[in-house]
């Protein structure tokens, strides 16, 4: 019998009248990977905060290695061998990787002098054992998100954690980094560590987890052996209803050109971030832009929304030249934009839902009359949108910060679609939202397409691109290096192209690997 490392029995956690966890029980054994699956607000993070000592349960027991414990604070959790890797990393950017790892637990002599060399040796050995690639001398500010995550993992391991909790670990990673992380999970499990990871991505669960505990509205729905459960079954258990898959894409007849980007070049500090890029979007089509993060997507989006200046080239919308125009000019020329980071770019969190919904139209009639805003109109306008788009909020005067991630995204989508754009640009529109909301957002995007809007979809989720797009463009190093048909392309081919291989050479490599 394998040792049970963590057992949570009948945990209930109440915040006032709200029951975040209701009689939740779960078990993890040595060398096991447990996935905690649930929608936003289902109570996963609360449960893990209890385990890591940030919150105290209202009732229930926690057993570590079969002994009842009380985890009063994070220090106790650490002493019990529980390590947490948060979604937002807790690192000091100006410190080196080594310094971040040992921070708070520095090995030192009796005078307090830190033994860096000794620490470095220990960590190097550990890194080798767990196959964690780390540049110990690099500054955290200079390393990739994937490596930052490895620093967090090493931090936990360095403190002798036997249980590692990951809160949505893949949310900020590129496909490659996700793959590496999954590999790390397996290695850690083979070294007898227990892993609990919070997620709402079913694919990752299928790939790496042994067991999956599904939580809905604070209750455990079921714990299943992952190898015996289908993806759809898991999804349905999570949202509690059947998912309607795929809104039908209707063929759209008129193919009027909406967006025409010609020879676009964007330089930043003398380096070309985008070089002679050409891109067209027609009415009634979804053009997917696939590529590894940091290949010019950010700069392209900034140019297409008027946020940044372009060095040369033209951006035409319905035949009208827009390059280097103001953001407002783009908005008025009917470009809708669902930004990648909804909290930093799309919303003003401490403002009300109504004000956020009005953000693109507040300045003209009927919302604005000679400099005075008509709040009566703004509020009824918002009430309509809340109703039509099913935004779950108590009322429109609530701050947007009090909404769940999925509902925040709905606020943005409602606002952008309401403004009746000819071109809708969506950048990672489903990042960090749950399956129910993903389904909703995809349906809305396809609906807009069916109504003859042109849509540019930029996403790091290949599945999303392949599922929604009519055409897929691959961006690499600031250039479009090929166009592919999403119906026939394989993920393997697309992956190679994203890494910078041209179509011809991709054909060759694929044939080679098939031989």
């Amino acid at each position, binding site marked *: 019998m394998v040792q049970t490392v963590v057992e949570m029995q009948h945990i209930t956690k109440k915040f006032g009248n709200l029951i975040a966890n209701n009689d939740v029980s779960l078990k993890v054994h040595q060398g096991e990977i447990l996935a905690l699956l649930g929608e936003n607000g289902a*109570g996963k*993070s609360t449960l893990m905060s209890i385990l890591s000592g940030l919150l105290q349960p209202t009732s229930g027991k926690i057993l570590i290695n079969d002994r009842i414990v009380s985890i009063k604070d994070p220090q106790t959790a650490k002493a019990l061998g529980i390590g947490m890797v948060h979604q937002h990393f807790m690192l000091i950017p100006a410190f080196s990787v080594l310094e971040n790892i040992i921070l708070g637990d520095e090995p030192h002599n009796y005078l307090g002098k830190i033994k860096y060399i000794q620490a470095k040796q220990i960590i190097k050995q550990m890194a080798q054992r767990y196959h964690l690639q780390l540049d110990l001398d690099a500054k955290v500010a200079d390393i990739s998100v994937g490596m930052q995550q490895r620093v967090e993992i090493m931090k936990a391991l360095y403190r002798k954690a036997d249980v590692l909790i990951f809160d949505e670990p893949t949310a900020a990673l590129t496909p490659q980094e996700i793959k590496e992380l999954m590999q790390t999970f397996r290695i850690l499990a083979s070294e007898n560590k227990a892993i609990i990871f919070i997620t709402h991505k079913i694919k990752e669960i299928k790939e790496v987890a042994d067991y999956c505990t599904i939580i809905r509205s604070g209750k455990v729905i079921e714990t299943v052996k992952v190898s015996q459960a289908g993806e759809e079954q898991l999804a349905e258990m999570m949202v509690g209803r059947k998912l309607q898959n795929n809104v039908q894409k209707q063929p759209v007849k008129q193919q009027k050109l909406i967006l025409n980007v010609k020879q676009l070049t964007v330089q930043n500090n003398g380096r070309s971030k985008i070089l002679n890029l050409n891109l067209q979007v027609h009415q009634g089509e979804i053009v997917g832009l696939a590529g590894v993060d940091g290949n010019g997507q950010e700069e392209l989006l900034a140019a297409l929304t008027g946020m940044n200046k372009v060095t040369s080239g033209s951006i035409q919308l319905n035949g009208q030249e827009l390059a280097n125009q103001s953001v407002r000019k783009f908005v008025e020329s009917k470009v809708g934009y669902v930004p990648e980071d909804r909290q930093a770019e799309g919303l003003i969190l401490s403002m009300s839902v109504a004000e956020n919904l009005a953000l693109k139209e507040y300045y003209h009639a009927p919302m604005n009359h000679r400099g005075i805003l008509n709040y009566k109109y703004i509020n009824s306008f918002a009430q309509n949108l809340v109703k039509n788009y099913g935004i779950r909020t108590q009322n429109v005067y609530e701050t947007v910060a009090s909404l769940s991630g999925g509902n925040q995204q709905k606020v943005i989508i409602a606002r952008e679609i309401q403004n009746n754009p000819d071109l809708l640009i969506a950048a990672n529109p489903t990042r960090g939202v749950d399956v129910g909301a993903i389904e909703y957002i995809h349906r809305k995007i396809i609906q807009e397409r069916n109504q003859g809007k042109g849509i540019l979809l930029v996403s790091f989720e290949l599945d999303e691109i392949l599922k929604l797009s009519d055409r897929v463009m691959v961006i690499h190093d600031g250039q479009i290096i090929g166009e592919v048909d999403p119906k026939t392309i394989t993920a393997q081919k697309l992956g190679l192209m994203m890494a910078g291989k041209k179509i011809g050479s991709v054909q060759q490599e694929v044939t080679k690997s098939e031989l």
Partner: protein
Amino acid sequence: MNCKKYSALVFPLMSIVSGFVVGAIIMLVFGYDPLQNYGNLLVGSFGGAYSIGETLRNMTPLILTALGFAVSSKAGFFNIGGSGQYLMGWFGAVVVALKWSWLPGWFLIIVSIMSGALLGGVWSAIAGLLRAYCGTSEVITTIMLNYVALYFVNFAVKNWLAAQGHDSSATITAKASLRSPLLASLTSNSTLHWGFILALLVCLIIWIYFNRTRAGFELRSIGLNERAAQYAGMNVRKTIILAMLISGILAGLGGALDGLGNFQNISVSNSLPQVGYDGMAVAILASYNPLGIILSSLLFSALQIGGMSMSVYSNAPTEIVSIVTGSIIFFIAIKYAFEIILKKYKLSYPKFNIAGK
């Protein structure tokens, strides 16, 4: 979200009470009677028509420097230059009142007030322009501009306005003064002047500006999330400059009204006027709400005016008042500690967003 509305009042009130408690403890330690002294303070500030008039008169510049600080803070800027802007406003108003005294009565007053306010506005717009176009920290520039204002005004008064060997300008003509026989007679000859009424009016205007106008919406948006505001098509640069301009105009207006209503002249000073800094405290206590500023400036003004009589009627030093105001600000600053206490005793609702993402 009723709890939020209450907490906007609860925290400042708790801070004020705590501030008075600290003052009382210190008086006890040094052998003064807190009840008697606080009684004197109350009598000194509200005990009669005259003291009320003085308290209201003293509120006038406080309201305006606080409004100025509130406007810049709402836009996300820390305008510490209220003091210098106030001084420039005072200077501008008195100079015009003295030099253009040939202008007809009310017109002279309007022109004097406007030039004072405008000079204050220009003074902070310098910091706004530097911030918008060069990214220079407004904290540094406004502090530096405070000293430039102080020494410039001292130089100007000494060399251009004051008679040889004197340290202050002549008194402005009666027709340029904001003093009013009516207000004086209502308050047993206090120095209450029309500026107070104007300040209240400006509070209302700024409230409307914040909460009902397009420009105010842009100001708040940029203060809360500059990037999202940019994506919404707002002109960040323009709004920053405008906010700093308005901020300075308000502080300058405070100086102009004080100059024309209270001082009636301008003199060389050793240090920057305290009212510029007190305004920051007033605005923070009111959480930048223009109507709240009326209440918090009333409190500060009462403490200042009442504090003077504290040392008249007993032997307690006036500095006790500074300890009380200082403590109030301290408690406002550690608002977070109060939040924890409130949560512990379940006076406030729990934060729902703890429960999962």
